[in-house]
């Protein structure tokens, strides 16, 4: 069924007569067969087609690049709004529309790659067992304002932008949507940023090196770190996972291509592990050549382009500028510290889970997590913590895999240099809690012990990623 076919806003309900083909007819000239096949993989029952849409990102590249061509594409786009059930199109109503809203896809007149800015709910894809970085946008359709949660996606147009700019755009749009202190960045801003670190022409896009992408991020206030597989070998994915678990989307370098890792897949059914990384099964990625929320696992058949985890040769993590301690440095420090504590006769649970978070978020969660451990809760609520902390939770494999609980944690100041003589801000192990009272008062180390701590498992910290 189709309503208002010739209007600016048309509504298509998929039935025996109408389907994605009807939507494609309304979007004539905007899609190649390849793009149509990509969209047909999305299973929804109804779509609003919004013609003559002015998209801020496409208008930006149109002004800076496409308009300079002899034969120019139109400056307008089409926006598709996807719904998970039939809505009352004639009588727009926020609650009904928002409950069915599954996101939008903007079609640019940039053939062959016309899929522009896109934000879709992850629920549209088969992502069971995944944990994702998500942000929220408010979308206005026909006077109805609707909130949508997802990870931004855009495909390259092969002229003004290639995969490197598209991936950078996805990463940056996530940050500007999620955190108010990052400003919105448009495709031509990225080109300008990269121009100041030139390695060849900036337009048409000839591709970027990981270092150019890092330099562009540095100019925007990030402090990115780069990891090469040849250097970190078996630990390479472990560190990528630690950053992902911390809620940082990553740029993953594949042969000649770059994608954004936006979450991870984990299977907690396997027993007998010694690290949360042992449950890791792969990444959820946004690959600008495909659809959002693709899988990248050990199995090539999980990925439409046959990439697997061994295809990743490098990665970039866009850390905030206040984080001076990296994942591998923290891993070294905490591993040695746990050995020292074990040699000293302390009971050390065998499973480790490492992540970076803010002191503020950690304290906020402490209120609910340490309900059965009043001494520990009181300590975390009253004790000042740095802006960023590295946390290594410890647990027993059975407790972790069955109920995602831990029995202690080591907390390290992430704003310290690795070479600062320091043994952590807090060492909470079953029945013991040691902390640096000196750091709290901005003075030299002064470790104290809190007595009477019980051994009661509690929920692992989870603030950085959303379980799907």
């Amino acid at each position, binding site marked *: 069924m189709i309503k208002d076919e010739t209007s600016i806003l048309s509504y298509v309900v998929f039935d025996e007569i109408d389907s994605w083909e009807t939507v494609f007819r309304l979007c004539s000239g905007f899609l190649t067969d390849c793009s149509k096949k990509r969209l047909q993989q999305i299973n929804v029952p109804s779509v609003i087609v919004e013609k003559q849409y002015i998209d801020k990102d496409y208008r930006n590249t149109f002004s800076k690049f496409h308009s300079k061509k002899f034969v120019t594409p139109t400056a307008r786009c089409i926006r598709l709004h996807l719904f998970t059930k039939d809505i009352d199109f004639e009588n727009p109503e926020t609650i009904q529309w928002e409950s069915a809203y599954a996101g939008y896809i903007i079609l640019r007149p940039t053939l062959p790659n016309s899929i522009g800015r896109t934000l879709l709910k992850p629920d549209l894809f088969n992502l069971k067992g995944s944990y994702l970085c998500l942000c929220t946008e408010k979308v206005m359709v026909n006077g109805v304002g609707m909130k949508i949660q997802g990870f931004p996606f855009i495909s390259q147009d092969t002229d003004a932008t*290639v*995969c*490197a700019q598209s991936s950078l755009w996805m990463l940056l749009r996530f940050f500007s949507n999620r955190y108010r202190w990052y400003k919105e960045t448009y495709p031509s801003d990225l080109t300008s940023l990269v121009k100041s670190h030139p*390695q060849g022409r900036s337009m048409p896009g000839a*591709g*970027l*090196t*990981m*270092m150019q992408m*890092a330099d562009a991020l540095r100019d925007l206030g990030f402090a990115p*770190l*780069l*990891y*090469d597989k*040849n*250097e*970190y070998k078996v630990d390479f994915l472990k560190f990528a996972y630690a950053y992902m678990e911390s809620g940082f989307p990553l740029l993953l*370098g594949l042969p*000649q*291509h*770059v994608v954004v890792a936006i979450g991870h897949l984990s299977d907690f059914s396997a027993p007998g592990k010694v690290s949360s990384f042992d449950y890791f099964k792969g990444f959820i990625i946004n690959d600008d050549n495909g659809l959002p929320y693709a899988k990248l696992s050990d199995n090539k058949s999980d990925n439409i382009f046959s990439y697997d985890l061994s295809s990743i*040769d*490098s990665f*970039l993590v866009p850390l905030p500028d206040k984080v001076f301690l*990296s994942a*591998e*440095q923290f891993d*070294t420090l905490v591993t*040695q510290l746990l050995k*020292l*504590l074990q040699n*000293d*006769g*302390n009971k050390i649970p065998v499973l480790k889970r490492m992540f970076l978070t803010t002191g503020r978020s950690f304290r906020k969660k402490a209120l609910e997590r340490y309900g059965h451990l009043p001494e520990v809760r009181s*300590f975390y609520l*009253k*004790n*000042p913590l740095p802006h960023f902390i590295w946390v290594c939770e410890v647990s027993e494999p059975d407790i972790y895999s069955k109920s995602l609980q831990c029995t202690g944690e080591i907390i390290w100041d992430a704003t310290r240099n*690795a*070479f600062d*003589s*320091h*043994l952590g801000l807090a*060492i909470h192990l079953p029945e*013991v809690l*040691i*902390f640096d*009272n*000196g750091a*709290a*008062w901005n*003075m*030299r*180390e*002064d*470790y*104290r*012990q*809190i*007595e009477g701590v019980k051994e009661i498992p509690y929920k692992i910290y989870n603030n950085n990623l959303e379980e799907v």
Partner: protein
Amino acid sequence: MSNENNLVLPEQYAHRVTPFFASQEDFYKNRDEFYSKVKPELEELNEKRRRSEEAAQIKRYR
């Protein structure tokens, strides 16, 4: 200025003696031993970071 009497938490948490550090002297000894062990590893990690950054200037992604 000493932080002898400055405590984040009340007196019940004032115990300095722990299974880990018997005294402040013991703490410094432990800390120095700890850093002498981890320093070469941290230096090797710095080298890995430098070589990773060199590699990141070569491969081009399009």
